[in-house]
């Protein structure tokens, strides 16, 4: 069993949990994730590691309430136990000395990208960070981003298409300055649709664009194939070969998005989840 040692509400429906899991904390690297099960009747659900302390043996993650399991997680308090907590899974994010890195974050990505940004900062990169949130009230986790970023751009908008525009408008402006103000790399941890749009935006400029993909997962160790997707015309398992991939090599975004929504009608609470053009609606 794995004890919950902290529970912080960051914004409406957004929570941070800290879990006692020394074996996971010992090996964690930026961009990796865990799979947890709440109790004997629970499902296996993946969450990105947003912080860890290998000395204290704790692991943090931030989650958004969207359905049954995340709602149940939201009720858990310090002292409560999780049945299972496996990780660190997936390959760590690629970190190196790239130069100017633009990152795009939304949702839990606002917190889960922090370890990657820290590592990029330590490698001497210049960081421009675009944060997307529906409005000021639902923005969280700004402080570490302010500290880490050389430039922080807030893209606040209402739910729906307008919101996506403000992020793409910001990105367009940055791309217009390229290569005078050179962008060496883009990293995105946000909605699948936005990551796809961003990959298309940077393709003509040949700016390497890494996306953090989240297909539905079951085991998270390469056994079930639920998380398979086509990258560079070969089948990859996001839990083993990812979750970070080169967005320009990802083919079959449509299939990926459809698969991601297989169970969307089961318990999804998120308003506006019914993306335009999504195959499932």
């Amino acid at each position, binding site marked *: 069993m794995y004890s919950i040692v902290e529970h912080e509400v960051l914004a409406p429906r957004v929570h941070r949990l800290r879990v006692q899991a020394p074996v996971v904390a010992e090996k964690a690297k930026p961009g990796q994730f865990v799979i947890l099960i709440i109790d004997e009747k629970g499902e296996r659900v993946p969450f990105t590691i947003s912080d860890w302390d290998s000395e204290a043996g704790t692991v943090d993650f931030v989650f958004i309430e969207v359905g049954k399991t995340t709602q149940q997680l939201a009720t858990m308090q310090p002292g409560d136990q999780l049945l299972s907590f*496996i990780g660190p899974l997936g390959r760590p994010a690629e970190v190196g000395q790239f130069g100017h890195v633009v990152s795009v974050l939304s949702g839990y990505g606002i917190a889960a990208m922090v370890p990657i940004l820290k590592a990029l900062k330590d490698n001497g990169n210049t960081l421009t960070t675009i944060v997307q949130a529906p409005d000021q009230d639902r923005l969280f986790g700004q402080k570490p981003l302010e500290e880490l970023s050389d430039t922080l751009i807030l893209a606040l908008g209402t739910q729906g298409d307008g919101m996506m525009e403000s992020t793409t408008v910001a990105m367009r402006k940055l791309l217009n300055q390229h290569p005078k103000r050179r962008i060496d790399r883009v990293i995105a941890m946000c909605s699948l649709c936005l990551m796809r749009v961003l990959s298309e935006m940077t393709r003509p400029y040949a700016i390497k664009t890494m996306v953090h993909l989240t297909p539905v997962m079951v085991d998270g160790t*390469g056994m079930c194939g639920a998380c398979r997707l086509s990258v560079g015309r070969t089948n990859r398992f996001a839990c083993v070969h990812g979750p970070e991939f080169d967005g320009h090599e990802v083919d079959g975004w449509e299939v990926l998005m459809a698969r991601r929504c297989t169970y969307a009608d089961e318990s999804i609470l998120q308003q506006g989840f019914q993306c335009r053009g999504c195959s499932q609606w």
Partner: protein
Amino acid sequence: KQKINLNRVEMPKQSEHERRHNFDEVALGYTWELAKEEASRCIQCKKRPCQQGCPVNIDIPDFIAALQREDVEEAARILKRKTSLPGVCGRVCPQELQCENACTLNKKGAPVAIGRLERFIADWERTQGAPTMPEMAPSTGKKVAVVGSGPSGLTVASDLAILGHQVVLFEALHVAGGVLMYGIPQFRLPKEIVQREVQYVQSLGVDLRLNTVIGINYSLDELLRTDYDAVYLAPGAGLPKFLGVPGENLNMVYSANEFLTRTNLMKAYRYPEYATPIKMGKKVAVIGGGNVAMDAARCAVRLGAQEVYVIYRRTRAEMPARLEEVENAEEEGIEFHFLCNPTAFLSDGRNNVAAMELIRMKLTEPDESGRRRPVPIPGSEYILDVDTVVVSLGTSPNPLIPSTTPDLNVTRWGTVVTDERGRTSKARVWAGGDIVSGGATVISAMGEGRIAAASMHEFLSNGQ
């Protein structure tokens, strides 16, 4: 002289109408009366052909003789000498190819139902009394890591614990048992039986560490460098195979591993009481002809599919699945399509599978090895409407440990290379089960474990 009875005693089972709607065990097992009657058919052959047909050489005539004397306890003891999982093997061994195939009576009539008797004895022991605890050797002070808690790992862990070694058993999933838990369905092998075996292994002092992935949480080299004198690798063959044809990633195309893991390990058949969902269509195609395919097809029936097709590129005679399960599947209304193979999966326009394209196959004349290969018949493509597909082509060896252990020799199929005693190319490391065979049977995984455990014990005792 005793008259030989050529007909075996049937084992009661749930009717096909009833069992299509539940996940309870299909075969109900012999009663004591039936078991006695079946045991009485054995003529106690001097040459013991049945025993030679068993991969772990169980003393079959002896345990049947004990049953004939009405001494079930003694029968259980005899069984336990060679197998630690009689309740499992009695249910899932392909007996018709092994012990029962070799039985003398098989020449004239039906062989003695050795598997059913084994199952009876194991169930009797499980329900009638405490399992007999083995005599434990004094502690040797040596420490062993066993990676993977399937039948192979469980066998090595218990054998070495009994011999006095301290054993830590690492398992990546949140429960122990391997394929017995996540693959083989409840209606064929109740999970309570597997968990009972796991508890027994723990009762021997084996330290089971769930949720721990070797290759991620600890590398093999780390295990050898830190606490452990020797390691047994039994991570199985868990990597799902795909056909590699267009459209295979469409929504509602499952690998058998995902389909069976959701259903069995995560108990999706009890959704929403259990949180894991499984989406099922009406017309389900299961691709493959092995045990995995039979299990997937029969789960689909129970999850409410209206039509279930098994698509197999050879004929019924070549199907590698256990005969009993093929018959069960037929009784449950599953439709078999032989001599055809999918060439593409087609979308409904919204990235859900709506149909598949198949090509008809024929078998070639037997080659030198006597095998008849399936080859496509050009121009014979046709379309079959389906809304769910389960690709059940089997699995490949799990690459995680080999890929994180550069000096571990593997074949080009990814199986770990061992000698006949289970030693790998790496000092102090043994391996067995599906990671070595590439995918075989529960009993062979167990048998390889037995042999490796003996070799490991020798090494731990005298360094050789």
